[in-house]
């Protein structure tokens, strides 16, 4: 069956370090993958979209990689700040359909 896995345990890092979050999927062939940030009680905020023919995408301190062979995406935040503390969601398109399928999210805590 189709599965998207994100580390359910919170990731604790020190300010200034690089945070790396993982999204693994099975039995999907997504045309693209998106990363969102979600704060408690708020809606998902779009961060980056990466397509199947792209290996890497960057935006300011954010970097996403997409390995369709490993069926994995990595999301990096460099020079992390306490304001980066949030839950980060991975979402895949369901090829041929218009819906996004979300992972459970990984909570990131950046301490000063």
């Amino acid at each position, binding site marked *: 069956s189709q599965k998207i896995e994100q580390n359910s345990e919170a990731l604790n890092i020190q300010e200034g370090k690089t945070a790396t979050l993982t999204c693994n999927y099975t039995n999907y062939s997504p045309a*693209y993958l998106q990363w*969102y940030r979600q704060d408690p009680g708020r809606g998902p*905020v779009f961060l980056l979209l990466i397509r199947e023919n792209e290996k890497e995408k960057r935006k300011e301190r954010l970097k996403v990689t997409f390995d369709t062979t490993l069926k994995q995406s990595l999301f990096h935040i460099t020079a992390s700040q306490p304001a980066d503390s949030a839950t980060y969601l991975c979402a895949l398109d369901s090829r041929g359909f218009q*819906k*996004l399928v*979300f992972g459970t999210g990984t909570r990131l805590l950046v301490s000063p």
Partner: protein
Amino acid sequence: EPEVTQTPSHQVTQMGQEVILRCVPISNHLYFYWYRQILGQKVEFLVSFYNNEISEKSEIFDDQFSVERPDGSNFTLKIRSTKLEDSAMYFCASSEGREETQYFGPGTRLLVL
């Protein structure tokens, strides 16, 4: 920067009552969506809407649910007879194209008593 807006932010209702959740998608977007998130769980797809008709719906989106674009700006989700298990955050989203970024609204927190 354009954004998706939703009203109300919170709604409390009695079981069996009808609720209408409202959304104003980003103005040049053509595809509209509803998702929900039960507390502590994943964001789940409910329905997508394009060209004034439903293009896809999930198993959750049963006969109790309906969507409508009553005018050029609003997009609504109606739950006809609410159940306790409908309590969740409901998010509206919109995208410019079929395989483009979906932008989400802030959500409506629905509590069914």
